[in-house]
């Protein structure tokens, strides 16, 4: 007994030291979680901080006088001649009118305030309304992207302001007078890519992503589910099916860029399919997501209890009927969940698409599976690499759009799992 109480005393004396160690160990865990979540918060804060201004555009509203003389027109009634008129001049004139300190030498500086496309816009509007000739109209133009950057990021060292001091003073003044305003950036959602950040949008990339995802979904879901059914229900246990199994597990961990090499070598060089098109992108992403879908579908099939199978077999259903009528419907929610997660992965994938040429600069919104297109993550990549500072906020805004899509897909998967998955 003495031994026991003596040892109890030793234990009691060591407790303080041991609990200090315990607390330290525990705090490492908390620190690790704090680091991981801190990184997550910084990442999101950074993207939102950089990107929220991407959803705003800067406009400049001018009273434009359509003076045929100023536009160097001899016959203002001749539409062919009107189309060739000088549309920059009226813009400069109307700007000069509201900025009295501007002189004749400042023409280029004034011109640098409005977007390069504004003259085209004016021409289109005048062609649509020929009766405007000779009148003064109030028209809203996009500001030059340098003005856009200045208005949004005045005083931020991270952005280089490309306006002269005189221009900056003008912009400040016009902003105060309400001529230059920022408003919701509808252009961002209604146009394709552009060399001019102020006119660049994600619509082309979104449509490209949707087309690519459609091909991926249509191919990978049926093939993945059918493959999973074969492996789970029909495959004999032999070396070959073991090999398929090992193969699928390894494919799931092959770097995605390897699939890009495959797409380039097989689909483009061997089969002669066109580059940069959603169809080929979809094929490549199908091969990439298939392992994920097969693995999750197999898990879903495994979770269907054998009693269901036995019950169906017991009344004389064939193996295929058991599978198609009973196992498949019961496993479907799990399969769908896995497939949505696989699709979300595919939607965020960039590297393999770079290799099959989906990085081209494409202005038009694609209309079919064989039109040259790009996808959202690649658009982010392209903009992030642009030297113009206006593209940084566009890239961040595009990331926010991409993340919104991904989170909705994941939320859908979680909802499906909660709603439809049965617990046996």
């Amino acid at each position, binding site marked *: 007994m003495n031994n*026991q109480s003596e*040892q*109890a005393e030793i234990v009691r004396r060591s*407790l303080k030291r041991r609990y200090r160690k315990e607390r330290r160990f525990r705090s490492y865990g908390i620190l690790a979680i704090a680091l991981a979540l801190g990184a997550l918060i910084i990442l999101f804060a950074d993207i939102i901080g950089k990107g929220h201004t991407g959803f705003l555009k800067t406009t400049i509203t001018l009273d434009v006088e359509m003076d045929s003389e100023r536009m160097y027109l001899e016959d203002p009634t001749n539409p062919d001649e009107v189309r060739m008129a000088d549309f920059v001049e009226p813009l400069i004139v109307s700007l000069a009118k509201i900025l009295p300190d501007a002189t004749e030498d400042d023409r280029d500086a004034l011109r640098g305030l409005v977007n390069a496309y504004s003259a085209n816009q004016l021409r289109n509007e005048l062609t649509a309304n020929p009766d405007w000739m000779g009148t003064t109209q109030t028209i809203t133009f996009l500001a030059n992207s340098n003005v856009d950057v200045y208005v949004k990021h005045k005083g931020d060292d991270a952005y280089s302001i490309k306006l002269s001091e005189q221009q900056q003073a003008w912009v400040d003044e016009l902003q105060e007078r309400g001529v230059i305003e920022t408003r919701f950036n509808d252009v961002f959602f209604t146009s394709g890519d552009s060399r001019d950040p102020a006119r660049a949008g994600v619509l082309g990339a979104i449509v490209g992503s949707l087309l690519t995802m459609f091909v991926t979904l249509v191919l990978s879901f049926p093939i993945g589910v059918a493959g999973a059914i074969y492996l789970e229900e029909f495959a004999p246990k032999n070396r070959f099916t073991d090999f398929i199994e090992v193969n699928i597990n390894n494919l799931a961990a092959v770097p995605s860029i390897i699939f890009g090499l495959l797409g380039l070598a097989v689909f483009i060089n061997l089969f002669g399919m066109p580059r940069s098109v959603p169809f080929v992108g979809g094929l490549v992403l199908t091969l990439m997501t298939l392992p994920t879908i097969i693995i999750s579908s197999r898990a879903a099939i495994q979770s269907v209890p054998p009693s269901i199978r036995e019950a169906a077999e017991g009344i004389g259903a064939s193996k295929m009927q058991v599978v198609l009528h009973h196992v498949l419907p019961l496993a479907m929610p799990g399969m769908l969940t896995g497939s949505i997660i696989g699709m979300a992965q595919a939607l965020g994938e960039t590297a393999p698409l770079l290799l099959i040429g989906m990085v081209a600069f494409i202005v038009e919104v694609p209309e079919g599976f064989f039109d040259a297109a790009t996808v959202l993550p690649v658009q982010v990549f392209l903009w992030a690499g642009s030297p113009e500072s206006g593209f940084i906020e566009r890239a961040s805004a595009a990331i926010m759009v991409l993340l919104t899509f991904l989170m909705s897909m994941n939320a859908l998967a979680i909802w499906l799992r909660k709603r439809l998955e049965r617990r046996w």
Partner: protein
Amino acid sequence: MNTMNPGISAEADARHKSDAVIPVAEEKPEDTVIEEGKTVGKAFADNPKYKLRHVDVSYGDDRAIKNISLDIGRNEVISFIGPSGCGKSTFLRCLNRMNDSIESCRITGQLLLDDEDIYASKKDVVELRARVGMVFQKPNPFPKSIYDNVAYGPKIHGLANRKAELDDIVENSLRKAGLWNEVKDRLDANATGMSGGQQQRLCIARAIAVSPEVILMDEPCSALDPIATARIEELISEMSKSYTIVIVTHSMQQAARVSHRTAYFHLGHLVEVNETNKVFTSPQHDLTESYITGRFG
């Protein structure tokens, strides 16, 4: 918790009356009603090691232990018997606070070890467990060498200052567990390579290496063959000289062979406690009788 459900009291009375007459064979044990907090037999002792009063354990909304009061004497071997799910293991795990790791588990009542409340907020669980060792249902040696398994407890508690002391503790513990002669030549071998019976004796050696005062055993022989079981039972009898042993068992024969007292649990109630031979020869409660005569289990 002590208030009785008034709806069942009449029936309980009826049962007490029928105590006098010979129990009706047709009566199903499920129909018998247990009075909460009431234990037949000899539940209390003088100067006990454990003094347990009105212990209640619940998992979320399920009450697993219902108002149990019991004393466990010094150097006593007491066995807990009862049908599966009766709460005997849960109760055992309260004695060294192994239920702490289950989030939803709540324990009320008074549990005193040498008159110290083991659930007091200041009470240290590490110290408690150094005093109360435990052996589990399935042998659970660590995936380490035999030596390291036994040395694990003394090492973490700092019980040995030198390697030689540690060697002594390991040897003594293995001797006490009756394993020394079998393993002395392969102390560096991995413990997972031993037979089930050897593994369980190793776990006992591991527990006694920290010189506990109490050893809790949760169905220690249920995964073992009869020969290994016999060796463990022998060991328990020997160990009862220096330790208080609480053993949960499924086997009534085992309880009869090794224990001084036997406690019968039923659906979270402690129905009857008494000297082992009394419980098995003349049970006082008809539930106990039904159980030991094999009418259910």
